[in-house]
């Protein structure tokens, strides 16, 4: 099961990588965000799956479950901050002289 999941993950990851290289119609600024999280989040999800699969996350322990949820919230926050920050950077006026 783990090997099947791992193989599937690697194939999907390579497809994502190729797709992202082929995408030219997206603004390069947003492309940075899509590239970073488009490849990073699948890795995160895969290693989280492995931790549950290996029982390194002990579901019987409330403490472990809380930890598991906290880091999910953390990565969602970081991703959201980057998306919001990019939007704000692009959509607020510039009055400089350079």
């Amino acid at each position, binding site marked *: 099961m783990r090997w099947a999941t791992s193989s599937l993950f690697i194939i999907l990851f390579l497809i994502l990588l190729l797709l992202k290289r082929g995408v030219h119609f997206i603004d390069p*600024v947003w492309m940075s965000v899509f*590239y970073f999280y488009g490849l990073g989040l699948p890795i995160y999800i895969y290693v989280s799956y492995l931790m549950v699969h290996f029982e390194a996350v002990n579901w019987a322990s409330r*403490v472990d479950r809380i930890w598991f949820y906290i880091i999910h919230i953390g990565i969602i926050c970081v991703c959201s901050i980057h998306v919001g920050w990019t939007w704000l950077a692009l959509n607020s006026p510039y009055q400089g002289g*350079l």
Partner: protein
Amino acid sequence: MNFSLTFPVETLVVVGVVLGIYFVGITGLGLYFSRFSSNITDFFFSGRRFAWWLPMMSMVATGIGGYSYLKYSEQGFNTGMSSTHVYFNDWFLFPVFLFAWLPILYFNRIKSIPEYFEKRFNSVARYLCVFIILAYIFYYIGYNLFTIGVAIEGIFGIPALISLPVIAVLLGVYVTLGGQTAVIFTDLFQGMILYLVGFLVIGCGLYALGGIGEFWSYLPIENRLPLAPFNSNPRYNTTGIFWGDALAGGIAFLYMNQGFLMRFMTIRNVTHARMAALANLMITLPLSALVIGGLGWVAKSILSKQAAVGGALSEGYSLLTIDNSYHTFLLTAYHVIQENPWIMGFVFSALMAALMSTVDSLINAAAAIGIYDIYKPLIRPKAPARHYLKMARFLSLTSMVIGLLLVIWFYQQKGTLMSIHYKGIMLIIPPVVTTVFLGILWRNFHAFSACVSMLIGIAVTFLTMAYPQPVYALREFLLGPSEGDLIFFRAPFGIFVTALAGVVTQSIFPKADRLENISGKSVFRFIKVLAQGAGKNVESLTADTLKKAMFNFKGGEPSLKRGKSVRNLDVKLSSNLKDFEMGLSQKICDQLCVGIGDLIYLADQRWYLGGIRSGHFKLKEIYPDDKESDEHIIYIAEEGHKGSYLVSGRKVFLDKNF
């Protein structure tokens, strides 16, 4: 590179005085905490007794190196807020760190990363790892000293050949005598200085500009973005940062940086270590990114506003000009504090704090590897504890000297600070980080595959220095056609080669224990050496065998039922107990939910001590509740009392471990 700057003589005198006071103060602080190192476990791991917040705060200072202010302010000036990118990218492999790597290290009482390689694989893997990790640590020590050396040379005109040995002596004194406890407490203080100075100069910069709104509106749009350009800048791009920094550099920092990991090993239990790791990732890393790069953004905004208004910002401020972006931090700081020499002295102290706090951790880490992986197993396996402590101090000094010698090599390098940094690190890290991951996540991955993959990984990655074509090909695949440095892509290439070699070897020799018994000449003998221990039991050392690790740590079945902390207790000495054994009344045991053999943490009740006066005990005796006063008394042996640095008459609290 030309590093020279010109400051008025009176400014230099004041800066020198402030710096001198700072040096003496920090050395004195380090020496004070040397009293808490009576054996090598104290010297390197502070007795594994600290609360989460103390090492976490000191990690601030460890994470910010002497080069950080200079390098990231320069980066912030050139590419804007995307200088924070590399501080936000440790998330993707964080679940493995939190749920597998930390518990494996803690429950197996691993003292060094090479020791894990010995337990998980064999001694060949261990010494390959020793070689690589020491190269990594010495490279960092040399790089930190080099950057500070050029900064001192630029400002004071004192050649690095003179300034660096003086700094090294002061640094060496407290690390050599005080060990990890001195490092943690001085770093706690230095971390506060770093943040204070960082926020002070950024605050002054914002004030000079007229507020956050002005700062933002004068910052060019491309400098406001949080992530690096996609692939337009070959030296700084999202693709390279993802592969080279997030996946290679980030893993190296979290999984093989002995100095950083030793901070986690000083923490009292896995839950507290996780709290420290998460707080570091969510709070201190983003704050650090702001503090070290923020002045570069402010500088860009100031230049933009100066161009718009056609002169200096306002009365009291001179015209800011930055000809050499390497000095962005110093020039902008001097500008925004209105050239006040005393504050400039404070700013320069922060630079020294950044240097000292990183190098002291690395010196301690190199000495730990020297003792646990070289001296103890190979030279003097059985010697008195005092001898090892003396040797640990000698090795700390030796590490400092090696770092100093490396500065000569750094002075001969060309290129930006970023490219010099990555030039070595990206070559060194791939074999170890890949093997750590395969070792944690793949139980059948055996010693022979580990050794072969590391050897191939080292050889092929170094060969790319002479034959870089395969790295160009990988870069083209990941980034697209581009010119310039390969600074980010050598590490992912090395990781790919090491992983491929490991998977192929494992597939060809799935049962390598047969190779252990191979007979024949030269090549076969070499194979036999690499395959030693390939068939051994690796339970407790992989992500899927952590329950076994907990069992081994405790020496019995873990007790996971949660209890409550018990406070306001008095300590009494008992001659029936020895070492770290403890006796408790039934009532206290019920509150803690513990039984005979369970592990209990005892600490002085004053929270601000962070656990410096504490220890881990095993419950040996339970007394019936025949007296009311027994509810508030715990019994321990004299050795345990002394080893925990408890103060007689002070109240303590108890916490169940498991």
